[in-house]
């Protein structure tokens, strides 16, 4: 249920993680691939914290149906973004002419 402590915890965790991510990116602290991984992990933890503290997604009797709805939707999100990305990357591979500087 909504509580001042819960909202403040969610705020603190996500702000700190965004601060870390911004600092790492702007100071170019590591090679790009490692940085992308680290900030993705920051995003992941921050999102889980916000979903739990802010949206009250838990398995209490009061919130269980919200949790079920979210869990049922997640495969849809994954498919929408992942399948689209895969389709187009395959398309580009097969149809784009070689261009200078293309990876």
């Amino acid at each position: 249920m909504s509580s001042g402590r819960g909202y403040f915890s969610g705020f603190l965790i996500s702000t700190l993680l965004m601060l870390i991510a911004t600092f790492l990116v702007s100071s170019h602290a590591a090679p790009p691939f490692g940085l992308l991984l680290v900030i993705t992990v920051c995003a992941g933890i921050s999102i889980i914290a916000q979903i739990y503290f802010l949206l009250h997604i838990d398995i209490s009797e009061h919130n269980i149906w919200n949790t079920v709805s979210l869990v049922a939707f997640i495969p849809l999100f994954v498919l929408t973004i992942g399948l689209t990305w895969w389709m187009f990357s395959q398309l580009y591979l097969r149809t784009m002419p070689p261009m200078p500087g293309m990876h």
Partner: protein
Amino acid sequence: MSGHASNNPDPKTAVLWDTEYHGHDVISTRSLGFFMYLLSDGMLFATLFAAYGVLSYQHSYFGGPTPADFVKPWYTFSQTIALFLSVLAYGMGMTALKRRSRGGLINGLLGAFVLGALFLVLDVHDVMDLASHGITVATSGGTSAFIILTQVHAAHIFFGLLWILVMIYQVLRLGFTTDTVGRLLSLRMFWHFQAVIWVFVYIFVYLWGYMS
């Protein structure tokens, strides 16, 4: 999902079938419905992210400016702070609602409004700054996807701010009724959901774009 009190019913007089409809919990029914709307809103963002994902290749920028050229991480971080503080203010308003404190709720709503408006001001300034450098939705597919995705989120914030104003008016006029409290709960879910979406936008669009 309502429970009946039943301690040791007498078999001779126990009621086996509920012949009357006692009504359902209006607020929790509407809250679930609104949460499912928010999930469909998440689908909207998923499609926008999918579009941005396929339009952020090297060739999508048509040789023109890429996010690595125009993203300012610390500036966008200030937007992040404004939005997260706004979300926190709204949460504090809701805990005041639990204490039946109308003043506390209004303060939370006002704080959420001011900070959300700050977020919008920063965002609009950023977009206008981009436009002044010739970076618009017409510049390339990549910049178009970038601007549309970030501005659709900003549009959500804009309409959320309008909703906050409406709720301030309704609470001042009607007080805490089933309808107004239910709407405040829905607005809370909407506002907090924007913070979750913003994490996705900030990391995967702004910061990833800056890196590539």
